[in-house]
């Protein structure tokens, strides 16, 4: 794990130079965007003028209320297409800048945190793995993401990316509404112990809100397996655990593992959804905002902002150490 001081040095010596270069590119991008707007605006004005003049030639007036004014309608249709083209073109310009920025800055930050990690700005955790984790059980309607980080941290294989998942909710007759299931970082790591069952460690909303009654309903809910009541009261207050086997659940959630998960929740990640499925550890870390995105219309040459990128990636990678996943003293290598 890298410290903030180490990152500050890295910023001053390496990233600063890249950010200067990218700032120049950003200004060029902004210029190009405005240039495009002017050119397309010119085309639209010309189109409208041509439409008006042809109208006058045909109907004797710029706009004739008795006629269909076809030349004008054609001009407007072309103008609208031009606006769409403008958006597409500028969207492409912005995308290209963001891609270049990530490829240079985010990739360097990832490599700085750990040489063995790889970064891809456009890839993400595939939906099959998101579904396999079984943390969110709603049927996916839309699913996309970006910023995939993957590789091996010491002995543990990890990958994570930003994910946005949506579902459709039926509200009343014929009314369908899009609703988010999850926005944030989805993290997968190879777990250091072998196991057969399926286990879920979820935030304990019911017991927190309804106390004993909440616990009663937790016991009655069998969809995720048996309720597993653990002996750490602080852990029990924050999480509810379900799973297939009482003993195996405790084998995976040793006393120290419970403490570690609790520390993670109390520290860097206040919202945690965890599942243990098929030898892997899945963690969903919800975030409201879009992550790792540079601005196009404002300078990115800013230490605070870059540190934010670094901290989020560093904290996520350090889950491996925080949960002690590199301790491989059991039969799983």
């Amino acid at each position, binding site marked *: 794990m890298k410290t903030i001081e180490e990152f500050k040095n890295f910023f001053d010596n390496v990233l600063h130079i890249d950010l200067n270069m990218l700032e120049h590119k950003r200004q060029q991008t902004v210029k190009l965007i405005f240039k495009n707007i002017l050119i397309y605006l010119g085309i639209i004005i010309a189109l409208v003028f041509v439409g008006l003049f042809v109208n006058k030639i045909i109907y004797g007036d710029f706009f004739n209320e008795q006629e269909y004014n076809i030349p004008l309608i054609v001009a407007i249709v072309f103008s609208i297409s031009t606006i769409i083209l403008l958006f597409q073109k500028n969207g492409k310009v912005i995308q290209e800048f963001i891609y270049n920025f990530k490829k240079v800055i985010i990739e360097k930050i990832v490599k700085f945190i750990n040489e063995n990690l790889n970064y891809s700005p456009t890839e993400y955790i595939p939906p099959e793995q998101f579904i396999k984790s079984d943390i969110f059980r709603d049927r996916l309607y839309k699913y996309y993401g970006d910023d995939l980080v993957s590789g091996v941290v010491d002995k543990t294989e990890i990958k994570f990316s930003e994910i946005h998942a949506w579902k459709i909710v039926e509200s009343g007759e014929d009314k369908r509404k899009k609703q988010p299931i999850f926005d944030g970082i989805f993290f997968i790591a190879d777990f250091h*112990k*072998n196991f057969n069952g399926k286990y879920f460690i979820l935030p304990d909303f019911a017991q927190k809100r309804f106390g004993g009654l909440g616990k009663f309903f937790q016991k009655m809910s069998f969809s995720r397996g048996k309720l597993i*009541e*653990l*002996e750490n009261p602080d852990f029990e207050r924050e999480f509810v655990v379900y799973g297939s086997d*009482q*003993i*195996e*659940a*405790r*084998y995976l959630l*040793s006393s120290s593992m419970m403490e570690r998960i609790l520390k993670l929740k109390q520290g860097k990640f206040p919202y945690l959804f965890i599942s243990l499925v098929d030898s892997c550890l899945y963690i969903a870390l919800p975030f409201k905002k879009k992550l790792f995105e540079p601005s196009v219309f404002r300078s990115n040459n800013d230490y605070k902002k870059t540190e934010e990128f670094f901290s989020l990636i560093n904290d996520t990678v350090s889950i491996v150490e925080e949960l002690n996943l590199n301790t491989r*003293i*059991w*039969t799983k290598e």
Partner: protein
Amino acid sequence: MSVELIIIIAVLLLIVILFNSLIAKRNAVNNAFAGIDAYLKKRYDLIPNLVAAVQKYMEHERGLLNEITELRSRAISGNISDSERVELDNKISRALGAINIAVENYPDLKANTNFLQLQASLNEVEEQLSAARRAYNAAVNSYNNAVQMFPTNLVAMIMGFKARPFFEASEAERQNVNVKNLFNS
């Protein structure tokens, strides 16, 4: 249907539900105890392999290896009481811990893949054993609550159900391990 009849049926139904929940909890305790047993057996199975793997290297710890072999044969002999069994298992745990520490003096052994595999298996069994004990205690806790709390305690009293003891670490386990003593024994 008279009101009395309805009340009687309701009370009977309640007794059946309470009785069944008690039985379920008692079965969970027995089941959890069987879980401990299963991992103990798994540990017994590993001991001969461990002894075979280390005895070539560990010349100075012959006594310790003999002791663990003997403890194992006593534990699997069958005709021992539960308390003796617990005592034996505690001794086996301590002896295994001592072997783990002694290994540090034998770099060749530490490099032996066969031994490393065995050590990993043993670590796993120990962790599973500890998980099984925790699961047992959780089941006992839930069962004891039912036996001692109203209204299930009434049914428990009638049926003669008694609270069960928890699985606690023995006095010897609570104390810090004295490695020197272990080798002298």
